[in-house]
Each structure stands twice: as C-alpha cells, then as structure tokens.
C-alpha cells in the first residue's frame, strides 16, 4: 500500500511543478482581459481571444521611413560606443542592445560603413552578455567585410541578429528581456527622429512620420503591460504614459478605405487617406520627453 502511494507521488509531483510553471508562463502571455480582447466572432462562433500580440516597427523600418521623408545624417546624436562599458546588468544590456540596433539601422541607412562596423561590434558584446547564442558566422568578420559595402546584405545581417535574439529570448521564457530590447530600439529611433527635425524649417513629412508613432507607442505600452510586474519595465512606464499624453494632442483623421484585392498577384491595396494635425510645438514636446526617457535608458 505504501509502495503504491510512493509511485503515485513520484509520477504526479513533476506534473504539479510543470503546471505551476506553465501558469506563470501564461501570466506572462499577452492578457486576454484587456480592452482589445472583446468577444469576437468568426462565422457563428463567439470566441474569446486566447492570445494577443503587439508588434512595434523595427528600428530598420523606422530608419527607412525617416530617410524617405528626407532626414539627414547626424552622428552626434547617437549613443557612444564607449558607453557600452557601463552596461553590466541584464536590463541595461537589453535596453542598449535595442538602442545600438537603432543606431546601426541609422548608420546603415546612410551608408556609414565604419560606424556600422563599430556598432556591430558592440552589439555582439551585448548579445554575448545576455547569453544569446549566435549562429556560427553571424558576427564573423569575414561575413561583415564581404557584405559591408552592400547595403541590402547588411540589412539582412542586422535583421538576422535581432530576429534570432527575439526568437531565442521568447522561446526561453525571457519575454521581458525581449521587450526591453524592443523598448530601447523604439525610444532611440524616436529620439533620432525628433533630433533630426530642422526646427527652423520643419519638414511636414518628417513631422507626420513622427506623429504616426502614436499608434506604435500604444502597441508598445500594451506589450510592456504584459510584464508590468517587472520592476525595470515599471520604471519606464510613467514616462511612456507622459509621451502618450503628448501624442494624444496630435489628431489623425482617417478616411474610410477603399479595398482592392488582386487574387492573381495575392495583394490587397488599402486606399485610405490620413489628415494629420501636428504642430511643431507637439514635436518639441515629444522631443523633450523622449530625450528624458532616452537619458534613463543609456545612463
């Protein structure tokens, strides 16, 4: 009888521990009781959304948007390589892995080869510091040298590095670390954008591209709320909310879209028009807050 009960305990104990751990994992998943998780329907089903994801534009995408809007190159606004020496906690390494990723995307966009190599080097060190394994050859000098003059190839190298980091961290149940990288990258990209504006003669297109970040900030805040128990993430939420309050002053009016689908080419075009009411004072205010936030990230 005693042996029978011992067998039961031995069998069931690991399952109990796993269930507890899995519940904790579930609590890290994007919440299902947020405002977005309404009861929705596919056909006749009333289904509750099991999982919600929030995506933010990558620094590469943001650099591309700004460059196409007419932004110039100004290396003085970027985070200094030497600053990496003081990033010795996981949170600081993660945040600045994002920051330097944004810097690299910016230097790459303007074909600044030596600066790009320098940023790749510090990104490698921070990745190693966070225990993120890299595919053999990712940071190989030979690979970088072969591709450094080719902007598109370098683009794929950068994408590969950050995608691998995000996948590895999330699959290793380190979603909060992945979120910090995203936070660092987005803040730095917005900081760069607000610093390249010519405040004497502002480009309407650059101002509008900055204004459109209000959507991404909403997504970023929702993403970070999943990890609101993380004390590091909690530190930055007030400034992010302050930034959000400033973005709320910017009005974006969207017309109803005409949808055209081409089944042969497998593409759908969404023809909508935005009217963006953004004043230079809004951009100045955003610049002040994001500068304060960025200062906290890189110190």
């Amino acid at each position, binding site marked *: 009888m005693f042996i*029978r009960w011992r067998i039961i305990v031995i069998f069931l104990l690991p399952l109990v521990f796993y269930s507890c751990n*899995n519940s904790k994992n579930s609590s890290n998943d994007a919440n299902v009781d947020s405002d977005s998780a309404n009861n*929705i329907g596919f056909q006749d089903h009333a289904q509750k959304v099991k999982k*919600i994801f929030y995506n933010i534009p990558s620094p590469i995408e943001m650099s591309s*948007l700004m460059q196409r809007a007419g932004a110039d190159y100004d290396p003085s606004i970027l985070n200094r390589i030497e600053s990496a020496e003081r990033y010795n906690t996981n949170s600081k390494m993660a945040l600045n892995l994002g920051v330097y990723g944004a810097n690299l995307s910016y230097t790459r966009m303007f074909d600044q080869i030596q600066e790009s190599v320098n940023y790749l080097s510090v990104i490698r060190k921070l990745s190693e510091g966070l225990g993120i394994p890299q595919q053999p050859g990712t940071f190989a000098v030979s690979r970088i040298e072969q591709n450094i003059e080719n902007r598109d190839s370098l683009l794929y190298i950068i994408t590969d590095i950050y995608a691998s980091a995000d996948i590895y961290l999330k699959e290793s149940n380190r979603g909060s670390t992945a979120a910090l990288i995203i936070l660092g990258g987005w803040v730095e990209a917005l900081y760069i954008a607000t610093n390249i504006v010519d405040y004497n003669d502002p480009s309407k297109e650059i101002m509008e591209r900055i204004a459109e970040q209000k959507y991404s900030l909403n997504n970023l805040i929702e993403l970070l709320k999943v990890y609101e128990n993380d004390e590091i993430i909690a530190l930055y939420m007030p400034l992010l909310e302050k930034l959000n309050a400033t973005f709320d002053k910017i009005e974006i009016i969207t017309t109803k*879209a005409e*949808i055209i689908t081409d089944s042969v*080419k*497998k593409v759908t075009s969404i023809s909508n028009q*935005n009217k963006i009411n953004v004043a230079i004072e809004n951009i100045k205010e955003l610049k002040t807050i994001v500068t304060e936030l960025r200062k906290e990230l890189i110190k």
Partner: protein
Amino acid sequence: MKGLVKILFVSALVASFPIMGFSQCKGFTKKQCLPILEPYLYNGQLNSAVLSEGDVAELLLTFYGGQEYRVLVCSQDLIGKVEFKLLDTDRNEIFFNKEHDYTTNWDFNANSTQQLIIQVLVPQGAVKTDIANSGCVSIVVGFKEKYE
C-alpha cells in the same frame, strides 16, 4: 498494482500534452516560416503560440503608408487549415484567407498609416474527438522598404 501503473501511465501521458505543446513551437518559426517571407524583411518579432481547435489569436500592429507588407500565418499540419483575417480597428474586414483557398500568406499595402489587427482562428475539426488537436501557430510579418 499493474492496473494502477496503467492508470498512472495514461494520466501522465494525457497531462504531458501541454508539455509537448509548449515545446512544439520551439524552432518552428525560424525553420518553417521565415524562409517563406522572402523577399520581405522580417519585422523581427516572434508571435507564436500553441493553439487548439476553436482558439483565436490576434496581432495588433501598424502598417505605414508607402510600405508593403507580407502577412504569413504558419501552422503545424495537425491543426488543419487555419483561418486568418485582416481587420481595421473598428473590426471591419479587409481580407479573409478563407475566400482565397485558405492561403497562408498575403501581401498588403496602404496609402496611409493605420493600426490594423491580424486575427487567426483554428477551426473545429470535422470529427469531434475528446482530445482537441493543438499545434503551433505563428504570425509572421515582413515589410519592404519601397512601395512604387
């Protein structure tokens, strides 16, 4: 005694399904999904989960005006054909893959920047069983820098 061992074995097997599910997604996106995204550039964010029949997942993101996007919903075969829709924030339908033979990927472009929702549903199987099939589903988004 033998009977007890059998019961415990079956219980452990059934209870381990979530464990197997948890590991189902590991490596799935990188191996099975990302190659299909080319020539679009991956946005670098993993959106994968183990979903069962009847489950719904959503991804909220921004499509920037002047960019092209590819949405790929990649899933394991055992959960069958997965449905996905692109919705605006008022939940108006922009695209539904069921109307295109359950295609797993589609391209989009927008004149102006807007917030959108990618909604994924794992349909109920044709044959109802006591144990719902579950498998890894990954929503992958790529973009192109230029839009002509």
